[in-house]
Every structure is written in structure tokens, then in C-alpha cells.
């Protein structure tokens, strides 16, 4: 079995009186796509936000690549290999697509940012070197056609791909996708599932939240199901699809 990238142990998060996550534990291995599903308000986004460091968890451990990170603020977690996208599109509207992706790669640059002011110490060489990677990511996410468009002028579907591209630019070990397919139409969803598979093939672990079951069932290796902040099931897509508790709480009769 591949090495464990992320291990979540006994995670709790409450907002005032609301217990959004209770005693959640699971783990994700390298090159694995893990699904996180559950009814609205079951704590999926809260989980992602706690992992990424936007919220600090009330208690529990988050272990990334063997290192506890729950006490870290948000930005160093990215440098340690954990990036994310948001449930509602979050972009830099005035940048071009390429500029935004380039900024996503900032954590991979080793030179002192101040050196870049005076173009010193090989900072511009290094900046040139990452350009190749940025092009690669733009192609991977199919954004190269619109790379020089202003972000505010691209469609909301394209913005969702842009968020993924930006997250990939940081060279992550694990990427958290919060409802990447929301608002995408069918052929875009296909592109998305291809993209997720490509990401996996590069050895990057993916944790994906989605309400779109077909997508989840197609791309996930394993799925964790939340309800009222607690894990109610974990298993392969086939196991989950037939799990009674999951059907009751989440899928309904339709699925």
C-alpha cells in the first residue's frame, strides 16, 4: 500500500454551540482520490477548511506527510504540500489566467521575494524556470487557450478549473477540492473527471467534496460519508452506494 499522505485523528470543530465536526478520523494515501460526501451542513466544507487551516480545529490531530500541522496557520500548510479550492469561486479578478496560476506557484520559489525587486540573486532565472511548469499546468487544465484573458471575463466554469490550476501550481502532495463540479455542465464534468484522474496519475492525493454522485462514483477510490459532523460510513464507491445509512441520510431513493 502507498504511503499515507494525510491522517486525520479525532478531529472536532465547533462554532459556538454548533458542533460542525465530531470525532472525525480518516486517512488518505498518495495517489488516492478520496471522496467526502454527506448532506448539506454535515461538515464537509468545515473539514476542508480545518485541514487547510482557514479554521483552527477545536481538537484532534491533522498529520500531513508524518508531521502534525493542526497548530500551523493556513499558508505554511501549502508549503508543506496541502492546497485547496473553495466551494464558491475565489479568484483574482484583475489578473490574467496565467498571472493567477503563476502566483499559485509562489511557494515553490526558493529565492527571497525582495531579491525580485532588484532582479538579484538568480531570482529572475528561477522565475523563468517555473514558467515551464505553469505552461504544463495550463495545458493540463485546458486553460492554455484563455491563458491571457482577464479572470473576470472568463466563465464561472472556467473559473472553477482555474482554481484547480492555481492549487496545482503550488506543487501539492494533497489537493482538497470543495465541490469542483458545482455549476458545470455535462461535458465540462467529463473534463473535470479526466483532470482528477490525471492529477492522481501524477501521484497527488485528492480529497474531493461533491454532490454529483456520478462524478464521485467514477473518480473516487474510497469515500467517507459524513452526517451531522460524524463519519457514518467509509468504503469503496460500490460499498457506499448500497450502504443503508448513506441512502437514508444522503442519497435518497433516487440514487
Amino acid at each position: 500500500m502507498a504511503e499515507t499522505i494525510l491522517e486525520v485523528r479525532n478531529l472536532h470543530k465547533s462554532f459556538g454551540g454548533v458542533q460542525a465536526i465530531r470525532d472525525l478520523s480518516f486517512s488518505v494515501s498518495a495517489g488516492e482520490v478520496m471522496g467526502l460526501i454527506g448532506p448539506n451542513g454535515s461538515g464537509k466544507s468545515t473539514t476542508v477548511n480545518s485541514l487547510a487551516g482557514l479554521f483552527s480545529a477545536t481538537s484532534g490531530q491533522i498529520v500531513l506527510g508524518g508531521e502534525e500541522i493542526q497548530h500551523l496557520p493556513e499558508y505554511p500548510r501549502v508549503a508543506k504540500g496541502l492546497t485547496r479550492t473553495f466551494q464558491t469561486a475565489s479568484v483574482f479578478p484583475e489578473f490574467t489566467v496565467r498571472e493567477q496560476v503563476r502566483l499559485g506557484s509562489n511557494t515553490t520559489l526558493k529565492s527571497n521575494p525582495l531579491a525580485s525587486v532588484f532582479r538579484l540573486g538568480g531570482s529572475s532565472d528561477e522565475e523563468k524556470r517555473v514558467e515551464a511548469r505553469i505552461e504544463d499546468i495550463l495545458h493540463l487544465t485546458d486553460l492554455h487557450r484563455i491563458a491571457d484573458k482577464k479572470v473576470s471575463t472568463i466563465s464561472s466554469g472556467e473559473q472553477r478549473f482555474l482554481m484547480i490550476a492555481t492549487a496545482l501550481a503550488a506543487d501539492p502532495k494533497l489537493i482538497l477540492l470543495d465541490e469542483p463540479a458545482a455549476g458545470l455542465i455535462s461535458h465540462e464534468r467529463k473534463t473535470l473527471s479526466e483532470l482528477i484522474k490525471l492529477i492522481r496519475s501524477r501521484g497527488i492525493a485528492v480529497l474531493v467534496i461533491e454532490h454529483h454522485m456520478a462524478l464521485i462514483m467514477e473518480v473516487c477510490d474510497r469515500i467517507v460519508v459524513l452526517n451531522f459532523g460524524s463519519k457514518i460510513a467509509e468504503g469503496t464507491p460500490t460499498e457506499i452506494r448500497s450502504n443503508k445509512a448513506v441512502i437514508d441520510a444522503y442519497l435518497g431513493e433516487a440514487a
Partner: protein
Amino acid sequence: MLDVKDLKVSYGGIEVIHGIDLHVKEGECVALIGANGAGKTSTLKAICGLVRPSNGAISFNGTDITGKSGHEIVRAGITMCPEGRQVFPQMSVLQNLRMGAYSRKDNEQAQDVEEMMDMFPILRTRAGQAAGTLSGGEQEMLAIGRALMSRPKLCIFDEPSLGLAPKIVAEVGATIDRVKKMGKTILLVEQNSLMALRLADRAYLFEAGEIVLEGTGEELQSHPEVTKAYLGH
């Protein structure tokens, strides 16, 4: 009931809707489907008076409402449950529902609040919570409830199932169906085209700011182009 003629909408000089015609008859449920950025929301916003059309005429129940302010249109009986929910984040769930009845003068509002809470029980358990802290799905239910609170003649839904759990999507579908059965006229925009087309009496397909197809729900469901682009999984 609603008649839109040669509608054009631009943002800052860039035209995004290039002259469309559509109509909704009393008691009918009409769906607008199409890709991202095709111009569905912009069309709805023009109807509701949130953006001013650059050209065209919109009439509702025989009166011209083109270019009227949003509140006048709402008071004429059109309400919209907007894309992205747009709840009042710091008001409580209850206050949000009451705001829905802002344009009403009768005193059956308390009763309608109860009705909404029966329809979406989660809203009752969260009645005092600030709406901004609800989960996405909870907010969608609140937005639908709030829209219905105005007892509209024409009810517009912009992507009501966005981000909802499958079970809830089915419920939303059922809710819209119920609204439809209440005899309300409905204009529905949905990414979940399958659901939309099942619910709709008629539908329009948008592409890049133009209407490219029109037909009954069944017709479009079986149209090859639609199946390929919108109804795949």
C-alpha cells in the same frame, strides 16, 4: 403572462444577450437551460429589474415592465430565488422569511412562515441562527422559502439545486413541483437539465446569449444535441 421581446443586455459596453424572445403562459413551468455564461442569469436579472436591458420589451400580465425598478416588478408579482442564494447573512432565518413578505400587506404572514417551516423542517431547528452561517444547502432552502413568502404570481428559480445533496435535489424538485401544482407560474433555470426538463412544460436552450432551441420538455429531452451536451452524467 410574461412576454420578452428582442431583449439585449450589456455589461459595461459588452453585450451578453443578443436579442432573445421568450414567453411564459399563466400556470406554465418554463425552463431555461444552457452552458455556463450562456446568459440565463442575465436574462432573469433583466426580467426582475436588477439590470437594465439595453434593448427590447418585457411585459407582465399585459403591462410593460421594461426598465422598471426591481421593487416595482416584485410588487407586480414576480419574485426570484437568485443564483447563489443571496440570503441576508446576519439576519436570522426567521427574519429572512419575514423579509420575504415585505411587499405584502395582509396578516397571514405568520401562518405562511409556519408553512415554509413545515416544508423545510431544518429551517425550524435553525430559526434563530444567522442565515450566513447555514450550510449551502440550508441556505438554498431558506431562499426558496423566502421567495414563496411573497406569494408571487410568477416564481423564478435560478439554479435552485446548485450544491445540494442528491436527496435534497430530489426534494427541491418535488418542492418546485408542488409550487407548480399550487398553480403558480414558474420560470426555472437549472444546470441539472434532466430535472429541469422533467419539470418543465416548455424549455429554451441558451447558447452564448442567444436562444438556439425551443420546445416542450420531452422534445428537448430527446433532442440529440441536448442529450450530448447537457444530459450526460
